[in-house]
């Protein structure tokens, strides 16, 4: 029989062993040094399934310190089940303070959203990335996409945008809109809505991207130029709710969720849960807003 102690060894602070943390930190430094470039890393298995935020977790656990205050969001919400699960795991493994307040967090792990409220120099936003390769939709082989990045050969991506325009009258890119970072690498911003894409550029905070299953880390350092792909005469546009206001806060100018009621009527609600709480509780927090071209 197994002795009871056999399965109960304690885990290291922040779960990962120190060697793995060092390796991941080195890769993060490289990613910061070459904005938008995908750095391969070890990506050890985590107790969370692949595709459920392991890449984000690796980064968070590699850089978190005891004095950090953590926030985890999924689809903009602190209360989404997977956000709860990840927050609980990191909390258990580090004992760090957690918060729902976007302004109070020093480290935010996110899936598919950037908080509406402006993030500062004191904050790091860690994205969970399902598919880091922006060229995957036009080239399925990894060795070829790496070569295309190396040669800055992005013609296939441009052609795919052009074809979408010819066929549908718009670029038809929803979430995960292709961007060019620092005038060099094309990058997937992870499946954030277009609404969030302009906030990547010239930000005060550090953006780190972790793709666990695909074993890649990349970064957008503070004050880096990030341009969504667009043509001179066909411009990038963010989602437009045509003046619709949030049913709970009577305010607009934020990413809205479409919610269907029992009787199939629909209403719109501010997606960012903490932003909504703040809208309802007091003055509107500072935001960077993008104006769609006319």
């Amino acid at each position, binding site marked *: 029989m197994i002795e009871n102690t056999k399965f109960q060894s304690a885990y290291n602070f922040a779960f990962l062993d120190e060697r793995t943390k060092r390796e991941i930190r080195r890769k993060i430094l490289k990613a910061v040094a070459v904005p938008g470039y995908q750095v391969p890393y070890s990506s050890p298995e985590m107790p969370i399934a692949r595709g459920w935020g392991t890449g984000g977790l690796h980064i968070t656990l590699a850089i978190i310190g005891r004095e950090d205050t953590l926030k985890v969001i999924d689809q903009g919400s602190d209360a989404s089940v997977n956000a*709860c699960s990840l927050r609980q795991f990191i909390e258990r493994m580090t004992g760090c303070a957690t918060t729902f307040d976007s302004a109070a967090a020093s480290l935010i792990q996110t899936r*598919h959203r950037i908080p509406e409220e402006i993030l500062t120099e004191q904050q790091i936003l860690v994205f969970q990335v399902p598919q880091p390769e922006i060229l995957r939709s036009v080239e399925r082989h990894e060795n070829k996409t790496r070569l295309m990045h190396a040669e800055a050969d992005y013609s296939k991506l441009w052609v795919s945008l052009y074809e979408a325009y010819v066929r549908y009258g718009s670029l038809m890119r929803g979430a995960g809109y292709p961007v060019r970072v620092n005038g060099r690498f094309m990058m997937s911003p992870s499946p954030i809505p277009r609404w969030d894409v302009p906030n990547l550029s010239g930000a005060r905070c550090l953006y780190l991207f972790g793709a666990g299953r695909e074993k890649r880390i990349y970064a957008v350092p503070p004050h880096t130029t990030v341009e969504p792909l667009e043509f001179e005469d066909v411009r990038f546009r963010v*989602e437009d709710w045509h003046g619709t206001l949030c049913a709970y806060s009577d305010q607009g100018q934020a990413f809205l969720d479409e919610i269907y009621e029992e009787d199939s009527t629909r209403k719109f609600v501010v997606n960012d849960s903490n932003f909504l709480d703040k809208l309802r509780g007091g003055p509107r927090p500072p935001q960077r807003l993008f104006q769609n071209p006319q």
Partner: protein
Amino acid sequence: MGYVAVKGGQEAIANAAELVEYYRLRAATPPIEIEQIRTQMRLLVDKVMGEGSLYAPDHAALAIKQNEGDVFEAAFVLRAYRATLNREFASEILNTREMFIRRRISAAFRDIPGGQILGPTRDYSHRLFDPALATETLHSVEAFLNAIDCKIDLAKIAQIPAYGKVIDLLQAEGLLLPRDNSDRRVADVTREALKFPCPRSASLQMMARAETGGLMCLGYSTMRGFAAGGHGTVGELRVGDVPVRVKDPRGRVRYLGKVTLTECEMVNSAKGSKRAANVPYLSVGYGLCFGQNETKAICMGMLDNSLREPNEANPANSQEFTLYHTEGVESYGFTNHLKLPHYVTFQSGLDNLRESMQRTLASYAGLTVEPAAK
């Protein structure tokens, strides 16, 4: 906190965990002991150890129990645990010629030096229910074991030799394609992301950890025309125990213990090099995995062969396709992530779709109206 935080994700997770535990136990039957799983679910434990990439029968058995027999989950638990372990040593190269043979067959020759040893297998058992098992008791088990014990001659076991390998015969005769073995890089797929084309060591490591069903799917495809060469021949398939040794800091080689392995050499016709393109050599594809998992070892052998003849037209001739998509823990995780909410991405797509749809419908409407106006 405000309205969104009261959705109660945290509470839902806790309730779900409690409920699934209730489902595991609600029939109130006696708990299965880890030792029972380890011994009576031997092949399942072997499979989980192989896919979990950790030779730890007790841990594998616990993982199986904890997940109500879900192999994907069990292998995943083992992998996650494995990733927390520091690597203190790398073993000396295992010598499977030292294997204590439990089973060893060759399909290539009627007789081989040392003989064919069928060993423990259900290959030739008829797939009929055995109703006696439904009422099996400890008493009947003991009676069976006593009967077997009488047949075992301990003196003979001590005399069992190590067996040479069938491919040695082929090699000695010069039938095997001379391979360029200059690439001696030993990759570690657990510490480094794959880059393609990857060295054979990485390819074999990935397959040794791969999901059995996934490997079988692609291995099978090579036999149905989705790779050149038709089906190969099992040069040798052996199952048994192999000693593991490490070198201590003072350079002395220390014996650690034995692991049970399945090893397979698949022999196939090979394309010659440019210099001797018309010489019909044979090539050997190598399969090795933990425990007794013959399907996996055979498929790995077939795929090792097919992967050395790159051809993007066939999944089994493509390293990227084969190695990425047979990786069980990754494909299982990503497939299941579809259950996570995606409403932000969906909303972003809807926005495009609605606009484009309105624009297109409006343009159609214009077309029908125009001729009427004329």
